[in-house]
């Protein structure tokens, strides 16, 4: 049996603008194991949200998926006819998007929005069963059953996000992609929503891809983490390993830039800016900001390589330790 529910290979997404093609996702590969919580962390413009949309095949012009492969339980999503993909969306792979508070329809009740999802996927339930199922869904995400008959504006931010999660799980998907699900919520509510999401994931036996920019949230909510920079996946590893010993200089500096609650004035920002994705620098995209850059970094782009068990990094500093395979798919799961 395949232990990977999702396999992504060399995924490339470009946005076509008047100035040229923006290489938002530049050939990234990763696997999602069954039941795993994978984090994708990156700053704005790193391509992390584009990855989420590409996995759902929701990239709209001027964006285009330029190539690569997405295998969901062995099924190649990028080659499916549109109608079949529509059936798979939500049923097999669901997205809880950023700012979900604004993704509820303001003029229909929550009940109607869940019913729409069920009807569009040809779920045959009679009125009583449907009502029962909706009530159960809402309870599962920590909302009262009465929330079904409320409008979005009657719910608080955290409750709206819970309603969105209820819609996302209504067909028991195998993969849930959560793109910054709590970025608009207060810390207390963020904690509650993330706990709910984790409970549900465990109950459904689903796998989760959590996308975000908050390293703290990642440390608490995922098993494995991928760090993105300028459209590339530059480092992956188990969360404990990655935090105890970040290998890529960007990851290391990113962690050093986090303000702490223990020590004052220890945090330092990373000088410079992320390069424009229109004309990325030659070589490693991070070399203009990297304190450890040397000649090779300026000419040759490093590939993501396995440098030790379950640790992949795209950095010339570590390429001497590479053990062949250039994708994290080879790790012994």
């Amino acid at each position, binding site marked *: 049996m395949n232990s990977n529910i999702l396999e992504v290979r060399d995924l490339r997404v470009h946005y076509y603008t008047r100035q040229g093609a923006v290489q938002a996702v530049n050939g990234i590969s990763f696997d999602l194991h069954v039941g795993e919580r994978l984090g994708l962390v990156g700053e704005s413009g790193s391509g992390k949200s584009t990855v989420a949309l590409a996995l759902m095949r929701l990239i709209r012009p001027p964006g285009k998926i330029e190539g690569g492969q997405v295998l969901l339980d062995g099924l190649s999503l990028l080659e499916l006819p549109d109608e079949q993909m529509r059936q798979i969306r939500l049923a097999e792979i669901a997205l809880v998007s950023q700012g979900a508070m604004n993704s509820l329809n303001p003029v229909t009740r929550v009940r109607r929005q869940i019913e729409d999802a069920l009807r569009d996927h040809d779920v045959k339930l009679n009125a009583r069963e449907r009502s029962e199922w909706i009530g159960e869904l809402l309870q599962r995400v920590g909302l009262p059953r009465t929330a079904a008959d409320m409008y979005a504006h*009657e719910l608080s*931010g955290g409750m709206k996000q819970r309603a969105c999660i209820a819609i996302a799980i209504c067909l028991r998907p195998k993969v849930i992609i959560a793109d910054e699900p709590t970025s608009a919520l207060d810390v207390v509510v963020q904690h509650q929503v993330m706990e709910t999401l984790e409970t549900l994931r465990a109950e459904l036996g689903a796998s989760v891809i959590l996308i975000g920019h908050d390293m703290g949230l990642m440390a608490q909510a995922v098993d494995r983490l991928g760090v993105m920079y300028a459209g590339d996946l530059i480092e992956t590893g188990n969360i404990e390993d990655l935090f105890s010993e970040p290998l890529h200089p960007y990851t290391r500096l990113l962690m050093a830039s986090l303000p702490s609650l223990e020590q004052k004035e220890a945090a330092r920002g990373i000088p410079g800016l992320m390069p424009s994705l229109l004309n990325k620098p030659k070589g490693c995209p991070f070399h203009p900001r990297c304190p450890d850059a040397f000649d090779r970094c300026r000419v040759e782009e490093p590939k993501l390589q396995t440098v030790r068990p379950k640790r992949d990094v795209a950095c010339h500093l570590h390429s001497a330790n590479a053990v062949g395979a250039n994708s994290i798919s080879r790790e012994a799961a």
Partner: protein
Amino acid sequence: MTALLEARHVTKVFGEGIFNRSTHLVALDNLSLTIEEAPPTITAIVGESGSGKTTFARLMLGLTEPTSGEICYRGVDMRHLDRDQRRQFLRDVQVIFQDPYEVYNPFYRIDHVLEEPVANFRLAKSKAQGRELIVEALTSVGLRPEETLGRYPHQLSGGQRQRVMVARSLLLRPRVIIADEPVSMIDASLRATVIESLRDLNRRFGISLIYITHDLTTAYQLSENIVVLYRGAVAEAGDVERVVKEPEHPYTRLLIGSIPRPDPKHHWGIKEKAPDRVPSGRSNNGAGGGAGGSAGRQGCHFADRCPNVMAMCREKTPPLYQTAPHRATACYLYRDSPVAAPEKLSEIFVARA
């Protein structure tokens, strides 16, 4: 000595709208805070959405008037400032807003927001001198003038734009800067740089800061004293070192426990009692705890969510108890400590070491 900027028993009630005259929302409830002329201080105002922190910023800036109480600038009620005093106020008290994307007019170059105050307050005798001032201000916040001037806002990153705002404030050599969530829309790798610029303003130029945020971590990093607001009222205040490391108020404990630490070995969160009821009807965009307190409501606002709730908490609003020389907590758990009058809040603050 009169204080530079002072809030005295300020209460702000929203409501009495056209559609619903019966709804009142107490955004801020009897808050007093003093910013002295010297020494320069950094005070953090921390709270969730709906805690009244932005209302407080708008009151201190004179953008809105208190329902009761007064905001005084150099001892004069903001509503009674004469023309010259008002002009001096506009120079002395500067603001940095949350969204570095919306404060700029996209049709003007960055230079415009810097030239405007120079012209308005006649800071320079000649164009060349004005330019010099601008270059100096930009350099002070760690920006390279040649890479910043002449550009349009969309050509700069959020962090750069926010630092241009800091530079703009600096041009006027203000006495106080009110910064409302200045880093919440900036990427993590640049956040530390902006915090550094703000700290520098305080140390090098002797400017006091009121740092308004929902983020306790940056509040801890930047400030000396902290005021934790919950639904418009002070929950806990005082020396930031003590408040963050040994929180007393159950709300502060919940808040600090909910911060996801960038350490996988750290256990996330503490248990909270589930809210008794669903906020219904007119629920604000605030999350979880909801926003504001309703007028005339008795008892501690946090009682419904509090794990330590007692009968007395629901009967009467707890006063501030001074639990240590430099801290006060509005919670009956500390009722053996002496009561601190609300207007004495700033007096318990710790002075810079």
